[in-house]
Each structure stands twice: as C-alpha cells, then as structure tokens.
C-alpha cells in the first residue's frame, strides 16, 4: 500500500499523462493520414478497383511493428521536398506505420457508409463516425510500439518507471497504474462509441423501412 502511495505521489502519474499525450498526437496524425488517403482510395476505387483492393489488402495485412522498422530503415531522417528540408522525428515514423491500418479501416468503413447511403439509410452511413472513434482508440493503444524506437510515449514512461524497482511486485504496481491509465482511456473511448451508436441507430420500428 505504501509502495502504491509512493508510486502515485511520485512524478510518474504526471509523466505518464504527458507520455499519453504523445500517444494521442501520434494517433491523431495517423488517423488524419488515414482519412485523407482513405478518402482518396474510396474515390479511386471505382476507377481502378483492382489496384485499390490489392493495396487495401496489403495495408490490412501489414503488421504495424514491422512497418515501423521498415520505415525507420528506409525513409531518410532528413530529406527535401520542393527544396524544403524535412526532418522526420520518430513520432512521425510511428504515425506513418499506423497509417496503413487507418487507411484500410477508413476504406472498409467508408465503403459500408457509402453502401448505407445508397440503400437510403442515413443512419447506417453515420455509423462511420463512431467507427472513427473506435479506430482512434485502437490507434492510441497501438501507438505504444513507439517505445521500441525511443519515442517517449506512455508505454515508454511505464517501462522506465518499472525499471527503477528491483522487486517484481513493485514493477507490477507500476504496470498496473499504466494499464489503469490506458484502460480508462480505452473504456471512455468505447463508451463514446456505444453512446454514438445508440444515438445514431434508428428506433426499432423504423429499421424495416430503412
């Protein structure tokens, strides 16, 4: 109990929250990339269906962790675009590695929304919004892989704090606080999804007509 108090009164909770802000930033970038490129894929879909389907399939299958190491080794740290020097920090590498998942997700759910609209169901199309919140939640949880390339995000803070304690019990306490913090976000995120779903779903009686 004393150890829990020591952990909670240390800098750890504040650092953990600061770290999680980086997780949110990474996920926001990844989701924004997913939205922009996903919409482009949706637009290009009817024109070049095979290419879009193949690319989407590849992105769905690409493991984030491997994509992250691939990008870290392939993309130069500094490069020029139209004469402008661009520095690629590791946070961006993580965001870019999450982007394939986000793109595939946007394409899959975007298609469902378009089909819903075509079928005359506005509510089915609007389900795209809670699905975006769901995707954001998943991206935040996945952005923890950044710890492997030195990004100072939430999981990195948890692991660093745990290493300060030699006893496994104390380490577990630190992990538990980390899991609680991520868990709170996760549960809030999915509560939002459920609320939005409930709000956007049509009443029982209207379902047949839609």
């Amino acid at each position, binding site marked *: 109990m004393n150890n829990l108090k020591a952990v909670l009164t240390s800098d750890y909770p504040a650092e953990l929250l600061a770290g999680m802000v980086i997780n949110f930033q990474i996920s926001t970038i990844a989701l924004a990339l997913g939205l922009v490129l996903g919409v482009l894929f949706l637009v290009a879909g009817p024109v070049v269906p095979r290419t879009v389907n193949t690319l989407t*399939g*590849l992105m769905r*299958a*690409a*493991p*984030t*962790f*491997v*994509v992250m*190491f*691939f990008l*870290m*080794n*392939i993309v130069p*740290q500094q490069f020029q675009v139209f004469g402008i020097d661009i520095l690629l920090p*590791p946070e961006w590498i993580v965001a870019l590695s999450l982007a394939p998942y986000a793109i595939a997700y946007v394409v899959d759910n975007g298609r469902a929304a378009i089909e819903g609209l075509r079928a005359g169901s506005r509510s089915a199309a609007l389900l795209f919004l809670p699905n975006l919140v769901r995707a954001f939640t998943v991206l935040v*949880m*996945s*952005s*923890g*892989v950044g*710890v*492997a*390339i*030195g990004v*100072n995000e*939430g*999981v*990195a803070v*948890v*692991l*660093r704090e*745990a*290493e*300060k304690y030699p006893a*496994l019990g104390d*380490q*577990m306490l630190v*992990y538990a606080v*980390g*899991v*609680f913090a*991520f*868990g*709170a976000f*996760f*549960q809030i995120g999915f509560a939002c999804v459920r609320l939005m779903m409930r709000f956007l779903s049509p009443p029982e009686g209207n379902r047949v007509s839609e």
Partner: protein
Amino acid sequence: MTRAALFLVTLCLQIWVWGIATASAETPDEALDELLSAARVQVPAACDNPEADRLIRILCSGRIRVGVRGHYPFFSTRNADQTDRVGYDTDVARAIARRLWVAPEWVHVRAATRISTLAEDGADVVIATMGHNTRRDGQARFIRPHYYRSETIVVGPGEADISTWEDISGQRICTTIGNYANSNLVSQGLRLTLFRDAGRLPKALDEQICRLVAHDDSFLASYLADPALGSRFEPKFGFDPVPWGMAVAQTGSDDLARVLQLISQIMHRDGELLELARENGIFNQFLKDQNELWQSPICATTAALADPACVLPALDATPPPTAFADQVKLIQHRMEALFGAAPALPMLSSQPAFDLFIAGIVNSIVLVIGALLATLVIALLVGLLAALPNRLTRFLTWTVVSTIQSSPVILTLVVAGAVANAIFTYSPSVALGSAIVALGLMNGCNAGQAIGEAANSLRQDGQHGRGFSLPLYREAIGRSLTQILSFLINAAKGTPIASFTGAPELLSALTDITSFAAGRVTTYSLVLVFYIAVVFCVVWACDALRKRLDPQKQENRA
C-alpha cells in the same frame, strides 16, 4: 633515361638502407633514426620521382597530410576560434609530424570516406577513430601497434548497482541500428530500443527516455564529461573491444608504414600516447596496459612488431561465407547488369547471418502457430466461463477481459515477459513462450468475450433457456466465428512485437544481422514481405475454415 637512372639509384639506396636498418637496429629508436636518415639522404634527389615512397614525398614537401574526423569530440574537433584542430587523434598526428620534422596538414574525412581518401591519395595517413578489422585489412594498411582501443560501454544511472550482464538482463537498453554490439546485447537478454542517430542517445539519457545506453566509449566520453550528464550517469562496464589503427595506402607506403609503426611503438613505450589521452580526458585503460606491455623486455625490440605477444590482431569481422555465397554473388552481378542495381543479401552471403535467418524464420512460424493455438484455447476457455449463467464467474471473467483489453499490446508482452523471467531463468525460449501466452491472452480474451456475448444473445432468442448447455456453447461459438477468426488474424499480425521482449523471431534475427552486415533496406523489406505473407496465409486459412464450418451462411451470403 635520367628518370630511370634516378629510380635505380633510389631503389639501390633504399635496399641498402633497409638492409642496414633491419640488420643492425635493435631498438625502435635506432631503427627509426636509421630509416629517417636513409630517407633524408634521398631528399631532394628523389623528390621528383613519382615512384618514391610516401615518406620521401612527405619529407620533400615538409608536410604530412593527415585525414581526421571533422567533428568527433575529444578526438578531432575545431578549437574555440576555429583556427586549428584539437583532440587525441590530432595530437597524435602532431607528435608524429614533430618526429618527422614536418607540419601536419588536416584533411577532413568522414567515416565513409576514410579508406577511399587513402586510395585516392587524398591523405598520407588517416588517424580518424577507425576500428581495425579484418575486412578493412584488405582495403588499407593498418599501423600496429594500435594507437587506441574503444569498446562498447553500458552507461547507466550513477546510483544503479550494475557491473555485469546479470545485473541488467531483461532490462531495456537504448542503442543504434546497425551497432556492432547489438547481437551481443540481445543474447544477454536485453530489450533493445533502437535509435537511428547516435547523437540522440545522450539526449535520451538526459530526458530519461532511456535508463541504460550502450554505445562506443569514445563517442560517449565527451557527453559524460559534461557535468550535466556525467554527474548523473556513468559507464558501468565495457565489452566488444575494437583496436583503432592509423592507416596508410596499401601501395607506395612501405617506408611510411614502417616509420609509423616504430613511432607508435616508441610512443607506447614512453607513455606519450597515454599522456595525450590523459590531456584530452578520454578513457585510457588500454593505453596504460600498452604502456606496461611495450616497456617489458619481450616487446622492447623491433622484432616485437611482428610478435603476437606484443601487437594485437585485427578484429575478426569477416564472417565465414555460406556454401552458396558464390552463386548469390553471381545472381547479384546478373541483376546489376540487367537492372543497374542489386539487393544486398547479407542473410544469404555469410554463414552466421544465414543461421540467424533460418532460425528467425523457424521461430517466427513457431510463434505464429503458438499464438494461434493459444488464442483459440484461451478463447474457448474464456468463452465457456463467459457463457456460464453464474454471475460471479461472469463478473470475474469480465474483470480479467477488461484488464487485458485495457493494456497496450507491447505492455502486455513486457508484463508477461517479466513474470516469465521471474519464474524461469531468461532464455530466448522463455521469451518466445511468454510472447505466445501474452498474444493468446490478448486475442483469446477478446474472442472469448464474443462467445459469451453470442451465448447471451442466444438465450435472449429463447432457444436454449436460461441455463448452460453444450449445444448453447457450440452454437455460441458458431455465432461468434467471424470474431474468433478476426482475433486469430490479429494474433498473427501481433507476433513481430515479440521481438521487443527478446523472442528470437525473424525481425529480431534480421536486426541482429544488420549489426554486423550491410543491406538494411533488403533486410527490412524482406521481413515486411515475410510477415505480410504470413498474415495472408492466416487470412486464407481462416476463410477456408469459415467456409468449412459455416457453409450455410456462405451460401446465404452468396
């Protein structure tokens, strides 16, 4: 005609001087004096001779062109007013120039241009933090005795009690991609956090992103000398030593190489190199040992320069080739001729890399199959508990599932690894096993929850009553089949993360390969293709399973 005569005279003089020098000189001082005297005799007569040794050219021009690093703190940097260079390497160069009665002229070299500068005659000698290994022996002539030796050091907090591998096993350590020491770090059970740029390592320590850092001591020395960092962090222990050598061109430098060898021997014996190291504040244990060695009777004469008891060998960095390395080379040449470029294939060219590669593939397949089986077993178990009508059982199951769902994948893997390492002694197999359990738990719990929810929905449909029965359970599994298969695919996709906890799968193996071989682009492209193929196989298998188990639904869909 005059040129030929001049060359003949020079050659005769050289042979005569060499004969005298090697026959009569016992001590390095005498040998050096005789060699330099003989060279000076040829000046200025041999100055116009293009075949003359570089030593003659140096004496003729009155300057020695020294290749040094542009900015390598404590070894070669510009002084405060940017007029000259300071550091151990440049001080060694100055000491050599003084003995030759010439002035040093600095030639800026980078890590990638050190050897090519010599080959292109851009410098007479390179003294530029260059490790001496067997691979480089074929590209330049290295001077022995070595003028310095670096090693990889583990740096950690001053208050941490760390002196051996056992003290840090299982912990996270920050290092750079392609670092020679990486495979050693992994084999000691450390989890690597990889940075692209070594310059970020001290910053990561300072900002507490990393608690432990492993890198070359010569690089970290300047950062640790800064009180802001040095007061909090210190070197804990070192490993993988690499001797540093001055180097000269392979041809036309026989006399220069001999002179530099003798000067190095004298400077070690007299403690001059040690003194220069002290003045520059660099780690100097190696130079202390060398000082004692070269003062000993066994290493006192010029014969010691060929004695393995006195001079260190080059680091053996040339791994044995595979049996089919020649065929690989041939294919690469053909590809280069056809497409203008060919991929580097270190995993097929050298035997240790090939062994790691095959082991990585096998372990990855074991990991994927293990994760799939664990997911399935845990899904069925959690699904069974979640489908029971007992509220307490369902509440406990929900608590476990919610906790596991709330943890980022990588954190769950680390926690599972920590528990496994507390129960068993760390080994790659333990890391592999704990990763299988963690991946199974994460995905199995989610799939199990889906089975529980399906059981509930079946009860609401009123087909199975309020209790629990095997037909209900079986039908719940059927109803949640899509979810179960999705989490199986997810488990396969998550397997490479296990490399972070030390599981020796393909990503981990290829990261090890890049620590001693080139070809990072090919290596990481290959691992990406491999894992995408694995996931596609799992997706295909899941689809086939779905069709087999649920033909009715498939028909309805069609």
